[in-house]
């Protein structure tokens, strides 16, 4: 017979409730790990989907995600002429409030020229943008089905396709539209003074402005060399895709990443303290039984085994509950919860370690229990 299991069975309801409570706590820690991973994955998803080789942005900036960047509309043609560039496309990026059937949501509007680099490389449902106006491809995060309509800047757009996992660094879903639609939207949403200035065709405020040019290179062309060439152009800065990815994880989502990371550490720490306390309470509740075991001659090995096995069963069941919980509700999280086998396994290892370390105090206390504590009524 296994006395650790026998004791658990004896107080099964209470033990399972404790496991469940602990499971909730571990579930929060586990989803935090998933959200951490999700933030990094999401930050890279857009640039990965756009599959740019070189990003061309306003001189002196590191746009268009980390910093604001504005280029004249004809920048694309300049980029196109650079040796090594196979194709180039203009893009715009801005956040906007969209009125959807579900209500007002914040979206990241991205304008691009269908047929040129800049659109999503894969669709979940529907089709990509054609040349038609007032069509959008929306990310599934916006919860818009193909055929739904969205109001943006007073115009009605129809959803023709959806993507998966394309969100801005803040978690807002991407909404793709044609460059022309996006430029008009930009104009409509601009403050009145700026609108008057751009209507007058004044410089940087011109309606024909974009935020970046995405370049795809010929096979064999060196991205660094092309970027170097572009940097020498007046008013242009260029980043290779590697530099852009680095910037996205290091700079754009860095704060979120560090915050989530710290939060995860704090949660794990809190879990560790709570697990240690639960194990301690569980052990001290059995003070008389442990004293009795010593009275009938049970060696320390038996006592240590009792505490340790119960701690590991507690942690194991709690973590199993946490995993089931997180995986069944991950889709209703507002942000992606990216958890794979590796994350779940690493967390299991951490929880196991916490359980073992958390038992040490209780084991010490249990070994100090005197057999005569079982005597008397």
């Amino acid at each position, binding site marked *: *017979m296994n006395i650790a299991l026998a004791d658990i069975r004896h107080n099964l309801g209470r033990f399972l409730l404790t496991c469940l409570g602990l499971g909730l706590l571990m579930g929060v820690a586990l989803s935090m790990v998933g959200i951490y991973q999700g933030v990094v994955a999401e930050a890279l998803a857009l640039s990965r989907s756009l599959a740019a080789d070189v990003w061309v942005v306003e001189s002196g900036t590191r746009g268009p995600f980390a910093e604001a960047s504005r280029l004249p509309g004809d920048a694309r043609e300049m980029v196109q002429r650079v040796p090594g560039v196979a194709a180039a496309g203009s893009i715009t990026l801005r956040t906007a409030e969209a009125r959807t059937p579900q209500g007002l949501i914040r979206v990241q509007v991205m304008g691009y020229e269908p047929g040129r680099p800049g659109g999503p490389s894969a669709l979940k449902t529907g089709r990509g943008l054609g040349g038609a106006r007032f069509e959008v491809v929306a990310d599934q995060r916006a919860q818009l089905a193909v055929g739904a309509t969205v109001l943006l800047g007073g115009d009605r757009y129809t959803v023709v396709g959806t993507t998966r996992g394309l969100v801005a660094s803040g978690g807002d879903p991407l909404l793709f539209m044609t460059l022309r639609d996006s430029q008009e939207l930009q104009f409509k949403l601009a403050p009145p003074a700026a609108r008057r200035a751009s209507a007058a065709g004044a410089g940087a405020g011109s309606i024909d402005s974009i935020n970046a040019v995405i370049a795809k290179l010929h096979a064999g062309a060196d991205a660094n060399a092309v970027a170097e060439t572009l940097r020498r152009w007046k008013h242009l800065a260029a980043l290779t895709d590697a530099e852009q990815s680095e910037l996205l994880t290091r700079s754009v989502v860095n704060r979120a990443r560090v915050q989530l990371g710290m939060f995860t550490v704090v949660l794990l720490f809190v879990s560790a303290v709570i697990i240690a306390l639960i194990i301690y309470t569980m052990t001290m509740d059995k003070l008389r039984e442990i004293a009795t075991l010593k009275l009938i*001659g049970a060696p320390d090995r038996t006592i240590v085994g009792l505490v340790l096995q119960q701690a590991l069963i507690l942690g194991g069941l709690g973590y199993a509950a946490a995993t089931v919980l997180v995986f069944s509700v991950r889709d209703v999280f507002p942000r992606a919860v990216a958890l794979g086998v590796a994350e779940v396994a690493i967390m299991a290892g951490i929880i196991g370690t916490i359980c073992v370390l958390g038992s040490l105090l209780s084991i010490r206390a249990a070994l100090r229990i005197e057999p005569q504590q079982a005597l008397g009524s």
Partner: protein
Amino acid sequence: MITPLVRIERLSKTFGSGDTAVRALVDVDLVIGPGEVVGLKGPSGSGKSTLLNVIACILEPTSGRFSLNGDTIWDGRYLATDLRRLRRERIGFIFQFHNLLPFLNAIDNVALAMTLAGVPAAEARRRAADLLDYLQVGKRATAMPARLSGGEAQRVAIARALANRPRIILADEPTAALDSERARVVMDLLRHVAREQEAAVLVVTHDEKIFDRFDRMVSLRDGRIEDDLRRAA
């Protein structure tokens, strides 16, 4: 000469120190040989439980000396290194309160004592079942302690104490929870075990109804042995 199973020499136990010190045992001498069934009586607080606990290596004495089975256990300090092993292999203790583990049923409570001593689980269960039958609680083998009556629990506890066939059997008022009929059955059993296993049996009791079941009656008063009467054979 036959080696005594229990030999106690000038043994004292003092709880606390200074003004509040309680001298629970004072210069106790006691020798119990194989097959002897010894009763221990005395008023409450006279040191009976203390004496049993010292012999069971649950309480450390203050001075004196004692040996079990010819091995010196305590002489100013414990000479045996593994007291719990001693307890599980050589001593059967029937506590005043049954002290069964609440999360194990009757048979597992008995079998555990054997598995702790290295008996394989299947054999332990078989022997535990035999012991419970012998003590007439075989029908309650799968009952949890909380569901046992006082008498049943006490008999399961006796089965546990006898599980590893110890040669030193200590019992602290084992018949207190039993009616006189059952109390006699338990005492006869202990006598039987003493004879069969050549064990020394030391039983604390107030129960005059069973005084005739002892070969010897030791009386304690204020921690001292008042008299030690051997029944004429």
